[in-house]
């Protein structure tokens, strides 16, 4: 079968609009018995409606495409533009990629998750663009009266052998079709690529550096005034009574005060006045969903829910039990949305990764027919799992409906940290049995506070469940199994997940389980190597199954100078992780000497410093290496934070952390001065996903390095969780006062 031949459509339209139809074209991937990992499931689920995505040629010589995904920083608008530029031989700056509104007919093909975007859209987008190319060449041939074979399309201009020229914009109308046609095309062969695989800078960079890039809160929607909520002191508490509603309504700038399901909403002329009004509200609160719970009680629940390991084998074993505390998946842009719900219609603007589910949920909440709800997907200021949910959009819709006015609703950072989504606390128990130089079996029991996956991924799996080769296992278990491959030759594997404890607002955070499960596994691998008297790097090299895996590991070790002499208190760690059809390896060097650990940092934490980070990655075909490098850099920063500094402390039913001076995400003073990302050349024809891939190996390598530098294997993450490095802010009022020292305190 020719794997580059597909069928596409020319759609009936006044200008040339082409679309992809993969029902006949897609090889292999549709065979559900051959599903290998989560991404195969997502891609296969997306197939039946992929044909609806289309490329439009505009009279000004540009091509446009509405991407049914969310751009939240991962660079998919740029990589998508590159695919179109490649097939259409168009300069990148003449491809306009926008984000599509919620389109329920796309079903599962509008969910941005599990690093799936490039994997699922790589072929359909190219097919649509290739059909456009084909039509444009035919239109030029008719215009010139010359055969298509003698034409060249370059830089958006078609020339014939006689030197006649016509721009594609001039052909936009003549190449169009009054009725829908189906057209066979052949995609450009990999050897001829001039755009795909070359480094390109982001297409939205100029807007971002000049302040022109518009996020949801930057949009000017008529009448949409700032709104905020006064929220409960404990997680998911409910409003009892408001003592001074009238008084707050009379405050400067305040236009509305209203009780909604999640708190008391205020709308005002400015957000500053919203903050003051929220702080002035006197509300009696009812219980939350986890009142009285703390880190210790949740840990006890996890211990009780842990599934037993198998019978202890007669051979020697290495065992470990690891704890991963709650973590916040807050992006820098807080939860926010604009809503205008009036006259039986709703219009919503928000950075959403699952806009179809959001649209359905909003329609249901408002009691409106689906067709009366329009959901616009705006550019998102980071996601990390947070934007799979639409908490702010739902809330904004409710507030707008109640007061009958448009609102621009934003969560204060304190709300975002305390009532927002968190990555669930988890424990991971690992046992490895070995004899001599042979590993006989690997068992892992991962126990986690329930992860809320009710944003579309769950529906996607339900729809596919009947066809899954593993039968009707619970969804989370399915997700766990499918997102975990076994890279090492470790004999008999048994990995089980159990979830417990509802009531928390959870979600993924640049992956659901992998960073934690990988960190636990890699620490045990180090211990096993030690028992067998082997070097941690040599051990991994000996036990990794496939050559691609060994190649990234070798690359990281060589580039990072594995084994070089270092002073006492400074050490290297190395770790491996595979997922999303990608393989990755990290080498980290960490400085745990007291003078480094105790360096003074104002309103932040220093602690051990990663001084060198080398990360090697092979994701298959790379569309944009510069973008991939950026993603891996971000993953390394996340891995460092997860291992060393960032967590939430639960006490009496609420999280102590209320802002960035409490929640210690990696800052400049924690970054590795020496950071290198190595992208492996790949012979694969298919791209891999990357947005989340790098976190697991990075976190694990930091943990392994820390263990080797201090001589003690860390078992609780982040390692500084036991020390509270800040004074918790009050919970009533729920948000801090605006300071006045912005001009003096740098």
């Amino acid at each position, binding site marked *: 079968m020719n794997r580059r031949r597909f069928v596409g459509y020319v759609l009936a339209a006044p200008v040339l609009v082409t679309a992809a139809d993969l029902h006949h074209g897609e090889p292999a991937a549709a065979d559900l018995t051959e599903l290998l990992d989560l991404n195969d499931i997502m891609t296969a689920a997306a197939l039946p409606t992929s044909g609806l995505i289309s490329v439009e040629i505009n009279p000004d010589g540009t091509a446009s495409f509405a991407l049914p995904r969310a751009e939240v*920083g*991962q660079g998919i608008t740029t990589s998508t533009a590159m695919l179109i530029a490649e097939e259409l031989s168009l300069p990148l700056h003449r491809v306009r990629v926008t984000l599509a509104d919620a389109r329920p007919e796309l079903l599962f093909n509008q969910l941005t998750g599990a690093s799936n975007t490039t994997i699922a859209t790589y072929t359909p987008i190219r097919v649509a663009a290739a059909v456009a190319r084909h039509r444009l060449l035919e239109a030029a041939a008719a215009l010139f009266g010359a055969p298509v074979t003698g034409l060249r399309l370059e830089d958006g201009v078609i020339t014939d052998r006689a030197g006649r020229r016509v721009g594609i914009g001039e052909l936009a109308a003549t190449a169009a079709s009054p009725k829908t046609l189906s057209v066979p095309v052949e995609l450009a062969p990999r050897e001829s690529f001039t755009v795909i695989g070359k480094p390109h*800078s*982001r297409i*939205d*960079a*100029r807007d*971002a*550096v*000049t*302040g*022109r890039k*518009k*996020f949801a*809160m*930057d949009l000017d929607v008529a009448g949409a005034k*700032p709104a905020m909520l006064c929220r409960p002191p404990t997680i998911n508490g409910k409003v009892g009574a408001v003592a001074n509603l009238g008084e707050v309504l009379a405050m*400067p*700038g305040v236009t509305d005060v209203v009780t909604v399901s999640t708190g008391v909403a205020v709308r005002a*002329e*400015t*957000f*500053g*006045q919203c*903050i*003051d009004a929220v702080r002035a509200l006197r509300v009696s609160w009812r219980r939350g969903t986890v009142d009285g719970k703390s880190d210790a009680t949740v840990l006890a629940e996890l211990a009780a829910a842990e599934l037993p390991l198998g019978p202890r084998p007669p051979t020697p074993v290495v065992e470990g039990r690891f704890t991963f505390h709650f973590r916040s998946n807050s*992006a*820098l*842009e*807080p939860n926010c949305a604009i809503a205008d719900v009036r006259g039986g219609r709703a219009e919503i603007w928000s950075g959403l990764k699952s806009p179809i589910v959001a649209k359905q949920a909003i329609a249901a909440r408002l009691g409106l027919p689906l067709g009366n709800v329009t959901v616009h997907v705006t*550019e*998102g*200021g*980071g996601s990390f799992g947070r934007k799979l949910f639409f908490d702010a959009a739902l809330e904004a819709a409710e507030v707008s409906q109640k007061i009958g006015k448009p609102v621009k609703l*934003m969560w*204060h*950072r304190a709300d975002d940290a305390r009532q927002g989504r968190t990555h669930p606390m988890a424990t991971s128990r690992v046992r490895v049995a070995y004899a001599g130089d042979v590993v006989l079996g690997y068992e892992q029991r991962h126990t986690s506070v329930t992860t809320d996956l009710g944003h579309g991924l769950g529906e996607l799996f339900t729809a596919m469940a009947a066809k899954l080769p593993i039968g009707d296992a619970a969804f989370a278990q399915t997700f766990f199994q499918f997102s975990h491959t076994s890279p090492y030759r470790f004999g008999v594997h048994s990995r089980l997940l159990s979830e417990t404890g509802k009531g928390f607002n959870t979600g993924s955070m640049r992956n659901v389980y992998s960073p934690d499960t990988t960190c636990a596994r890699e620490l045990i691998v180090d211990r096993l190597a030690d028992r067998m008297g082997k070097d941690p790097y040599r051990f991994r090299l000996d036990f990794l199954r496939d050559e691609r895996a060994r190649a990234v590991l070798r690359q990281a070790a060589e580039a990072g100078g594995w084994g070089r002499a270092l002073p006492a208190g400074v050490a290297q760690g190395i770790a491996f992780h595979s997922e999303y059809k990608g393989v990755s390896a990290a080498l980290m060097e960490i400085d745990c000497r007291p003078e480094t650990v105790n360096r003074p940092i104002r*309103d932040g934490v220093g602690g051990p410093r990663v001084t060198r980070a080398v990360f090697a990655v092979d994701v298959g075909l790379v569309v944009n290496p510069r973008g991939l490098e*950026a993603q891996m*850099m*971000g993953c*390394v*920063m996340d891995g460092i934070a997860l291992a060393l500094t960032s967590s939430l402390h639960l006490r009496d039913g609420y999280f102590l952390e209320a*802002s*960035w*001076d409490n929640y210690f*995400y990696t*800052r*400049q*003073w924690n*970054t*590795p*001065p020496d950071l290198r990302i190595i992208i492996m050349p790949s012979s694969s024809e298919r791209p891999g996903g990357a947005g989340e891939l790098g976190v697991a190996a990075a976190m694990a390598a930091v943990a392994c390095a820390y263990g080797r530098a201090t001589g003690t294997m860390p078992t609780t993450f982040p390692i500084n969780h036991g020390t509270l490095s800040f004074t918790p802010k009050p919970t009533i009022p729920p948000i*801090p006062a*605006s*300071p*006045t020292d*912005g*001009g003096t*305190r740098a």
Partner: protein
Amino acid sequence: MPEHTFRVNGKQVTVDVADDVRLLWVLRDILGITGPKYGCGINVCKACTSHLNGRAVSPCSIPVSDLEPADEVVTIEGLAATAGAELHPMQQAWLDHDVVQCGYCQPGQIMAAVALVHRVAAEGREITEADLDGLRNICRCGTYARIRAAIKAAAKNM
């Protein structure tokens, strides 16, 4: 309501708003200048960083009544004009190093970086790693390494 007069990006403005409203909201909600971003509202994340008379400040934590008519506020939108070009050298360096991921923190990062380079130059020395470690702006996308590279490059052209 009290009137407040000051300069923003080279233009005199007068706003009619309560004294204690912080400058960030005056810029964003009243004047429609949305480059400075909200990330914390308490002077810790630095996403709102702008310049006041050439110094980096956090508008989320400055009451508008603190401003005098001669005070010059420069936001990311007005930065290029201070260099008399279409892009400030720092913005150009940001493009050259493809720093931006989601972009939400970047206006603040760039404004902080420009002020840092000016301060270090005024002290008659070169930028050090310790200076870069001292930048407090958060980037939740983790663009720190490219930020450092871009600042070093721009410092040469400023």
